[in-house]
Structure formats: C-alpha cells, structure tokens
C-alpha cells in the first residue's frame, strides 16, 4: 500500500488528468489490439506503423504515380475536418446537458440542402462556397434547434426525438436523391460542381496530387471558437450552468429554454458544418438513405476528448488516423480492416472508464499521502502531526 506507484503518480496529477487518462486508455487499447494481432500471427508494430503510413503521418516505402506522403496527409486532413466538427457538435450539446444523438441526421440534412441548392448550381466559387457553409449551418441549426425546443416545450427526451429525426431525414432525403439527382452508375447523388466543393481536389504540387481542405482550417478555427465560447463568454457560462445544474441556472436568472435551444442550435450548426465538409468536401456526393457512421463515432470522440474543445481536436486526430490508416495497414500486414474498428471501440471502451480511473487514482493518491496521518500508536512524529492537522483543516468541517 505504501509503495509509490509510478502509474498513480503519472495519472494522479490533477492538472494533467484531462490528458493523461485518455492517453492511458489509448495505450491500454493499443496493447490489447497488439495481443489480438499476435494471436492472429501478425506483427502489431508493422500494423501500427502501417496505420500511421496510411494516414500520411509517416512515409510509406513506395508511392504510386502522382502521389506522395503529402497526398495521404492532405487527404487525412480532409477526412479530419468533418470529424472535428461533429465531435464539437457533441461537445456543445453535452455541455448544455443535452445528448445530441442526431448528429448524423443533421449532417445529412445540411449536406442535402447545400448539395441541392448550391451543389449543382453554376454559381462562381466565391458565392458557392460561402453559401454552402451558410446553408449547412442553417439547416443543421434549425433541425437541432427543433429538438431543443421539443425538449423544453414538450419535455420530449432529446434522445428519442433525435433518433426519430435521424430516420425521417434519412428516408426523406433518400427519396429526393433517388428521384431527382441520382447517378445511375454510382447509385448515389451526382457529383457536385467543383466550385461548391469545400475541398480543392487534385491540385498538383511538384507532381504530387493533393487535396486542399478548406474544412480543416475552418474546423480548427471552430474548435478555438467553441473553446472561446464555452470558457470566455457569457453565453458559454450560461450553457455550462444549464448543463451542470438546471435548477441552479434557473435560480441565477438564466432562461433555461432559450439557452437550451441556443446550445442545440450551435451544436446543430456545427453538425451542419460536419455535413458540409463531409458531403461537399471529403466526398462530393451523397449515398441515399445512409446515415454517416461518423455521426455516432463523434459521440465517442467527444468523450475521448473529455468534452473539451481542445481535447476534441486531439481525439479527432487519433480516431481519424485509425480510420484513415486502416486500409493501408490492412493491405500491408494482411489483417482485415475491421481490426482497426475493434481497436477504436477498445479505445472508447477504456476511455469510458476514465471517470473511474480518475476516482481510483485520486483516492489512492490521497491514501498514499495520508498514510502518515494515522500511524500506529507510538510512531507519532512531530512532522506527521503537523500534516494531520493540515489535512483535517483542509477537508474537515468548519470551525466557527
């Protein structure tokens, strides 16, 4: 009991727990993933390097014509953008005490309207691109705002209403896509005009093809903005207060309904941007009736990022890396791609235990610290007595 546990020392530093605990979860899952791969007779190290190579973070041994590490890396950034937006959307909802399970639906709706209204138009890029963003934000915000309103006005659980809306949005957009702008070969919507795309595709830099993602710039900016919003503004203060304790917020004079709807609209707006960068950026068309799995993964990403906008940035990088590098890893090492999905779920599983780890670690740490407080009789030293007094002063009841 008394020996210093280095792990506890590492995890116990409260100031860094927001980072150290998720890192611990990630390390655990990487170890678990390695075990699985060893059991399958594969080399885990090669697999993990493969993932990094596939995501363009480490150079591959050879590249195909017109591609280089920069191709993979820019493509990775392009995929990263919607993940950041989606996870931020979850974070904002979460902070307001609302569980936005409808990210996927809001993304789809936003992508749909942006595609429909701008994607096929002849507008020049300087009108089309901003318009795509505006339409996506509006569509997402309205859809999610409705959820907030239903919750406030009719006490409809946002979990249920977002699930229902996901279905409705998926089916209705599917109908329109299939009826009006499907491509019979690809069986999904026609490609949008490049002018409307949020990714400048297939640019050449020194003979190497790259995708320049406008979305990633916006996404990083959005993360900083959300950080600013939550921690530096009045509205953020109100959102967090409502999320942490509705009754106290109401008592403080905060308008609960308005704050919930606003938070939901911000969340939906971010989801809309996720949709725009996903359907009109990373991809340039939509699969009818398919809700992006990203919308659900984002929930877990936000958790991994501790529901903190900057943590979300890091978590998004990690989850996107795993997803993006999986194909190359699978090809290189010869394990099925799903293994990366399994590792991702493991990371999430372990990070879900973060609160528990924090609780245990803090407890152990306190106990370690506290050991000298109640020594066996006869061992009392002046030093110990001093500490014991401090401890009880700190934690004990107030003396009048």
């Amino acid at each position, binding site marked *: 009991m008394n020996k210093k546990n280095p792990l506890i020392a590492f995890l116990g530093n409260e100031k860094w727990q927001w980072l150290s605990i998720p890192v611990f979860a990630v390390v655990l899952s990487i170890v678990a993933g390695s075990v699985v791969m060893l059991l399958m007779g594969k080399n885990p190290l090669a697999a993990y390097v493969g993932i990094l190579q596939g995501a363009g973070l480490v150079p591959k041994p050879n590249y195909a014509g017109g591609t280089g590490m920069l191709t993979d890396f820019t493509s990775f950034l392009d995929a990263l953008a919607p993940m950041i937006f989606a996870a931020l959307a979850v974070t904002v909802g979460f902070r307001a005490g609302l569980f936005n399970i409808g990210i996927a639906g809001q993304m789809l709706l936003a992508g749909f309207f942006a595609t429909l209204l701008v994607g096929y138009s002849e507008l020049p890029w300087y009108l089309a691109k901003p318009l795509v963003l505006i339409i996506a934000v509006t569509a997402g915000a309205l859809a999610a705002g409705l959820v907030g309103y239903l919750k406030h006005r009719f006490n409809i659980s946002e979990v249920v209403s977002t699930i229902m809306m996901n279905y409705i949005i998926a089916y209705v957009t599917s109908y329109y896509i299939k009826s009006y702008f499907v491509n019979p070969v690809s069986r999904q919507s026609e490609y949008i005009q490049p002018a409307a795309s949020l990714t400048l595709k297939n640019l050449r830099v020194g003979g190497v093809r790259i995708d320049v993602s406008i979305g990633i710039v916006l996404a990083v900016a959005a993360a900083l903005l959300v950080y600013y919003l939550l*921690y*530096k*503004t*009045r*509205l*953020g*203060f109100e959102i*967090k*207060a409502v999320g*942490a*304790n509705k*009754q*106290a*917020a*109401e*008592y*403080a*004079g*905060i*308008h609960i309904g308005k704050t919930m709807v606003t938070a939901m609209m911000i969340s939906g707006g971010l989801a809309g941007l996720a949709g725009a960068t996903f359907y009109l950026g990373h991809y340039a068309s939509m699969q009818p009736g398919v809700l992006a799995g990203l919308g659900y993964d984002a929930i877990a990403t936000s958790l991994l990022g501790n529901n903190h906008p900057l943590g979300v940035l890091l978590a998004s990088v990690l989850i996107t890396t795993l997803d993006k590098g999986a194909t190359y890893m699978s090809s290189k090492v010869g394990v099925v791609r799903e293994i990366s999905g399994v590792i991702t779920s493991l990371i999430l599983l372990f990070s879900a235990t973060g609160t528990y780890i924090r609780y245990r670690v*803090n*407890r152990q740490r*306190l*106990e370690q610290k*506290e050991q000298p*407080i*109640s020594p066996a009789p006869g061992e009392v030293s002046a030093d110990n007595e001093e500490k*014991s007094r401090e*401890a*009880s*002063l*700190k*934690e*004990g*009841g*107030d*003396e*009048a």
Partner: protein
Amino acid sequence: MKDAMISIRNVTKRFPGIVANDNISLEIRKGEIFALLGENGAGKSVLMSMIFGLYEPDEGDIWIKGQRVTDYSPRQAARMGVGMVHQHFKLVENYTIAQNIVLGMEPVKKTLGFLPLVNLTESEKEIEALSHRYKLDVNPRARIEQVNVATRQKVEILKMLYREADILIFDEPTAILTPQEIEYLLEIIRELRENGKTIILVSHKLEEIKEVADRCAILNRGCLVDIRDVATTSTREMANLMVGREVMLEVNKPAPVFGDVVLEVENLRVKSQDQVEVVKGVSFQIRAGEIFAIAGVSGNGQAEIAEAITGLKPATDGTIRLNQVAITHYPVRQRNLEGIAYIPEDRQAYGLILEDPISDNLALKQYFQEPFSTPGGKLRPEAFVSYARRLIDTYDIRSNRGEASITRSLSGGNQQKMIIAREIEQDTPLIIFVQPTRGLDVGAIENTWQQILREREKGKAILLISLELDEIMALADTIGVIYNGEMLEIQPASALTAIEIGAYMMGVKEHE
C-alpha cells in the same frame, strides 16, 4: 461488560483526505438511550453507519451483543437486530408505506402452487397493528410521495420495528420536525426503551438530549472527547465540549428600526406541479429593517411562497410588489435586478453548481454584468478571481485551493457560507432566507444569525422561512404562521410564544 449491546473498540475510519473517526472506543448498554453529539462533520453519521454495516472500519472492531462482527453488511446488521433511521431518509418514493417497510424481506406466497409472488395483505395488517401499538399511525397503502416528513419518519421507525430490531439508531431525527412532533417523537423513543429497546440518538439539539438521554458521547473532528452522564451535565457544558470553546447560545438583537414597505404580497396563490393549489391567498408585508419569519411545518406552502416571489414558480393569482413595483410577472433575472437576494433551502440543488469552481459560483448572479463581462458578452476571468478572493476573505470561506477549488469539495457549512456571501453582496433591499442554518452546527448557526441581524441593521427587509422555532424566536420581528397554504396568524414576535406558534403550525386556530 455483560450487558453491553454494542462495543466499539479502537475504531478508525478514513476517507480520502480525512480521518472521520479516529481510534474511537465506547460501549452502549442494554436498555439505555445513548446520545451522540458533535459539530458538523465530527464523524457521528460515519460511526453510526459502521454500526449499521454501511461502512467497514479501517482499523479496530465492532462487537454486537457480545459477538465480534466480520463481513458486516446492512443485511447482517438487520439480522443482528440493529436498525437505523438515517439522517437522510431512505425511502422509495413511488412505493407504498407497506412496500417500503417490507423491502428487503418481502413476504411471498406460493401462487398456483409454485410461483413465489410477493403478497402484502398479511404484512399490511401486521404493519397496522404495529403502528397502533407504538402510536405511529400510518396508512400502509399510502404512497411515500404523498405523505409528509413526520409520516416518513414514522415509516423509518416502523421499518426497524417490523424487522424486530432491538438496537435502534436515530441519526438527527428531530431536525425536520415541529416542537409538537419532536415532543411526540421523544415520547415514542421513551416508550421504545420501556419495550426493552436500546437506543442511540444522534443530535445537535442539546435540549432534547438533556430531556431523554441517559448518557452522551461527544465527538470532535473524529475524536471521542468525552462520555458523560446526561443527568449531571449541563447543556452549556455539552456545547462547550462539542465546539471546543465558549458558545453564546443566544443572540443579542437590537431594537428594530422599521422603514418603508419593501415587499408587499397580496392574495398570492401558487399551484404545485400536479396542479394542486399549495399557496391559498397569502398576504403580508415586510418593511425595511424588519425580519419577517414564516413558521410552519415543512410542506405547507412556505417554499412555494419564496419561489413565487423569486419567480421560480409562477403565481396563479395575486400580486407581488417590490418597492411599489408590481413584479408578479417578471422573469427571474429581472426580479433579481429589481432587488431580491435569495438563499434557497436546498443549497446543493439550487444554490450552487457543485462541479464548478468557487469563483464561478460566487459570481453566479452577476456574471452578466460589469465588471464580470463586457457589454459584448465576453467574460473577464480576472474579475471573477479578484471578486472571489475578496469574498473568500471577508466571509471566511475555507477550501483547499482558494477560488479555484471545486465547490463540491467544500464542506456543507462552507458551501452555505458561499451562498450567503454571494447573496448578501448583491446588496438588495430584500433578502429571502430559507432554512439558512439547516444541518449546521451551533458554531456555524451562531455565525449565520449574526450575519442576518447585520443585514437587518443595514435596513434590509428580510423574509426568513424556517422550520426551526428556535431560529424564528431568536431572529424574527414579525411572525407569520403558515398551515396548509394559508397564513393563519401574523403577529409581532413579542406577542407569540413558542407553544402558541407550535399549535398554529399544527393547524390549531386561536379560538379552538
């Protein structure tokens, strides 16, 4: 030694960062009423919880009826005849009284010859009989959510009796009762002793201990200070032992100077969530420099009056005027700005955001104004910090990491200080205190009372809602008694005695 029902030997219990019980040894004899007193956080509840098997001692052991207990749990405790009425009731709200009482040892009856299904008809009869015998009349079929605190307490006692417990632990049973109910409860406790039960009574209220207990143990910061025979120890002595210094048990209240009417409530009506009218046409006025106290048994509408004035609940009828302005339909924020400060009853649910730092909580009512935020809506963290530091200093709020401490990590008393500090600092003409000293120990109570009186002297109008008659008698200039949503009587404090108020609180009108 032979008649020791419970024997605690060198028991130590630690929680992270605190020694809740430090090497405590004591013995409780068969058939006595043993009292336990101590400040908030002295470790009384923890000690009782160990006797009841909820916690396990870190060191030392517990003997019950001459048997050393190992692998102890509430189930084991019940089997050994130990029962406990917890400080915070442990009842299932949507169950009937009978269901609550039998929970954990539900009677089953074979249905269709093989299916063991719960059958309560027998138990309901048994409970009825039991409640008659101990004068604890309850309706076994009533749901807990529909009954008042006094009845809930009866249910807790019946739970123990139903389990045939012969060691009964009461953890602060009287904190929430009216004087009459307290009298009645003490009567029951005595009666239980007559029936051969052994009783442990935890209380802050020295009078009660003086009245019923045989012996008492005093705890201070987890250590056992002394064990005394109650008959030969004065209440003052007990108080001093408990706090560790001289305590002034009464306040000196200067003569009032009343100013203009600040708050005017006229014919106020409020409905509860289930659309039941809980405030039925209440009217009263409070002048500057006046403490107006509403006395009443919990659940008679006094909480709703406060909520209607502060805007947390809508008034269905009537007018509320603050400094001649009708604010009946103003939103909460606007009322606060018009000049209402409010110390709510449930500090954890309403008053504070426990996961946030002290600095945020202290600015909870002002964060949207200069200097805490700019007109554009940007926060100024430095303003939060400096403001918090000033209040922490002025109001002696103790925490481990200053203004950055997470509020949850503060003790209850310090949390209460935070709320009082924040609200008083609003410098509003009206301050509403609801149960300001609930759960506080004598020292903290004394402190809070002083603060309330200081505000009165500054010419604030004060609405005090309290279940504690002592508090009302000590502070009020004017007393209104509420019963069943109606204000039965409003009188200057000097015109009423505690007994009279108690009678009104029970719904007895003057002419009866």
